[in-house]
């Protein structure tokens, strides 16, 4: 069981209703973690071009997660 800090941005934050939460999970990677969180938060849809960062580095959805990781879920960006 890993202890993770999860953070939601923009549309995700609004859909989940909070900016972040502490999560205990067996998810092996961000992909599994996101799927698990979707069962908990009905509004947390998968979006085309969404991204994930682990400990402030953009990461692959299959990156292995470790205990204590900070996992940031980014909906599609729109700077400029």
């Amino acid at each position, binding site marked *: 069981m890993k202890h993770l800090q999860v953070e939601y*941005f*923009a*549309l995700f934050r*609004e859909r989940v209703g909070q900016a972040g939460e502490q999560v205990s999970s067996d998810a092996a990677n961000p*992909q599994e973690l*996101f799927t698990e969180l979707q069962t908990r938060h009905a509004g947390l*849809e*998968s*979006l*085309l*071009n*969404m*991204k994930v*960062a682990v400990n*402030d580095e*953009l990461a692959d*959805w*299959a990156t292995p997660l470790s205990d204590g990781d900070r996992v*940031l879920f*980014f*909906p*599609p*960006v*729109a*700077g*400029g």
Partner: protein
Amino acid sequence: MVTAYCFFHRSLVVELGFRVSHAALDPARCSAELVDAHCGGLVTFEGWVRDHNEGRRVLKLEYEVYEPLAIKEGEQVLTEAKRRFGVQHVFGIHRAGVLEIGECAVWVGVSSAHRAEAFDACRYIIDEIKQRLPIWKKEYYHGGDSGWVNCERCAHPHAHA
């Protein structure tokens, strides 16, 4: 959180690089800082808040910026532009917070000995900023509703990997 912008000494342009600002941008001040007697020209891009988008009347905008990664990725984009196009000085700054119509949301400037590479580098930087930086834009429409740009019509039925 970075609230000042453009208040840097000329020789530090490269080190300071990309910035996020919570106050109005001052393009003249940004331009002035890219001045260099060895450079023949300056190309700049200013992104403005438009009063419409995809057929809807926009009243104001809100930019949410995840600053640690936006700054890191912005710096990376500037460094790539300098290396790839061989230009002298590069600078970029992006607004965060609520912006009214007509306000400047992003400013990019490139000075170099010759103009062709300044145009190419400036375009590269703004294109990459829009695609890569963790910045989200919420539009508030005439009629009272609002929406996150690029997010509202892109639900993905399958895996996101």
